[in-house]
């Protein structure tokens, strides 16, 4: 549970901490857009390099960014596997035959069973999973005449590899940028920045202050709710609910046994919070003064201009080259 609190503000120093939250939010959006526009591997490499430079100059610990990326690992490997198995566009890069025989299939079954029983003891689960997949492929690749009753091929195409790589890199860039934003910006500032960046939406009658208040309360209560979820899980575990293992049906029951009490507690909580807010003279939609002020510095202008330049150049490269 604790690892969901990744990407939380970490006090520190550096230019990323000095930037105005508005700048960081806009730059994040602009750079994200740019990563979706570029479509050459070399440009992607340049983007990654730029992120690296930001991390180094901003003195952000790579470990924290990695922690932010870890939950995505599964998604990354899944897209990779999906592309390689099903995308057959472009040049053929690699091909090898697979032989199906009672021996090879039997071995694969044994490997999978071993994996199933031992995976809980292995720390690097994904690596272990991948190793199992490759071992299985290797076994199937072994020619075991005369028992072979069918053959197939395992092939990797150029586009599959490229697509997989692009999806991966884009995800990594987006998550890294957002992690940089959240670990260098205090929740209060993030909220003020958001409110201010959303302000143009007022034209279409969106109550941006209210949205900001909702986000700020959500930010405030996420750790509290996680704590609560933890407590409920412990309580349910003590009644015999196992949150680690189980089939789909059991998993669903586990989630229900978590969600129902969470909902009830959250309703009570929000009712009390609303009372406490009103008791302290909060009137929705009324003007309020603000304790925190945002100050725009030259550095902000520079960062914004650089980000916009990057976006414009990536658009021009895409359109004109």
């Amino acid at each position, binding site marked *: 549970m604790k690892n969901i609190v990744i990407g939380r503000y970490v006090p520190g120093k550096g230019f990323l901490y000095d930037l105005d939250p508005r700048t960081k939010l806009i730059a994040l959006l602009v750079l994200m857009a740019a990563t979706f526009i570029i479509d050459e591997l070399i440009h992607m490499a340049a983007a990654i390099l730029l992120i690296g430079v930001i991390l180094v100059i901003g003195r952000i610990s790579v470990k924290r960014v990695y922690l932010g990326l870890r939950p995505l690992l599964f998604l990354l490997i899944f897209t990779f596997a999906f592309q390689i198995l099903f995308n057959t566009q472009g040049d053929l890069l690699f091909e090898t035959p697979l032989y199906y025989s009672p021996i090879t299939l039997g071995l694969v079954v044994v490997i999978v069973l071993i994996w199933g029983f031992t995976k809980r003891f292995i720390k690097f689960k994904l690596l272990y999973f991948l190793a199992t997949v490759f071992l299985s492929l290797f076994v199937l690749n072994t020619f075991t005449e005369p028992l072979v009753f069918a053959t197939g091929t395992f092939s990797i195409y150029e586009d599959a590899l490229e697509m997989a790589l692009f999806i991966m890199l884009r995800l990594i860039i987006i998550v890294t940028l957002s992690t940089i934003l959240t670990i260098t910006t*205090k*929740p*209060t500032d993030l*909220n003020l920045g958001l409110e201010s960046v959303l302000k143009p939406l007022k034209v279409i009658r969106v109550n941006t202050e209210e949205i900001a208040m909702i986000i*700020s*309360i959500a*930010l*405030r209560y996420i*750790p*509290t709710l996680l*704590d609560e979820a933890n407590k409920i899980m412990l309580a349910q575990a003590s009644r015999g609910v196992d949150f680690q293992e189980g089939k789909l049906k059991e998993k669903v029951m586990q989630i229900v046994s978590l969600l129902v009490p969470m909902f009830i507690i959250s309703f009570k*909580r929000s009712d*009390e*919070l609303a*009372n*406490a*807010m*009103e*008791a*302290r*003279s*909060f*009137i929705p939609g*009324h*003007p*309020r*003064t*603000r*304790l*925190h*002020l945002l100050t725009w510095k030259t550095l902000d202008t520079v960062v914004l201009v650089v980000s916009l330049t990057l976006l414009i150049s990536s658009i021009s490269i895409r359109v004109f080259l």
Partner: protein
Amino acid sequence: MKPIIEIKDVSFAYSKQQDVLKNVNLTIQKGEWITILGHNGSGKSTLSKLLIGLLKAKTGTIHVDGIELNEDSVYDIRKKIGIVFQNPDNQFVGVTVRDDIAFGLENLQIPREEMIERIDKFSKKVDMFEYLNKEPQQLSGGQKQRVAIAGILAMKTDVIIFDESTSMLDPKGRKKILEYMKQLNDEGTTIITITHDMKEAVSSDRVVVLKHGEILKVDTSTNILRDKTTLEQSNLELLLPLELLHYMDSNNVDHQSLKDFLWASSLNV
């Protein structure tokens, strides 16, 4: 003395079937410390919500500082009464201690410079100045309640209601909050303590005993503690020394020094 709160013939019901408050009459003087003592579900919290207009009375009137509570005056009246609620987690609005104290001030549209001054002053008053940048997860329940108190002190209300504010705290946190109540009352703030714990009633000037939405008795705390019939009727849990004392009184057990000891330990918070 001038009355700060006047409750006249107030009744209230959440649903049609049952009145949660029945014909409540109570006048609270400026600077007084009053305890509302009652069993769980006796209507204490309901009464406090009526006072700041979070709920609307079915019948009767409420005056605060001479102003009648109604739809037009409710926002002005909320500036005069602050409430520290029971659950420390469900009233912490800000992301940090500083932001939470600021929340009420922002609502009152206090200028920024004055806000900063008040936050410093009142966080010091409850010994939370060093914690201004801390987040609620980093604080104990007692510290969160102290932040809540600072938030209300900063709004400079005339009355502070403590609605079971110490019931979720450990003995140390509870003692500290009781000390602040005493100090604030000495400085002239009207204090209303809501509790089902008799010990908390001891320091107050007057105790109102509430039972099933009706006022059973209003008297000084010592008189109420001595009043066996009222306490028996009130469905409240008695502390052992007090129960012993009552037993000795009603059975004519004569042992003055033991009685003195039991009385002193009942009063000892």
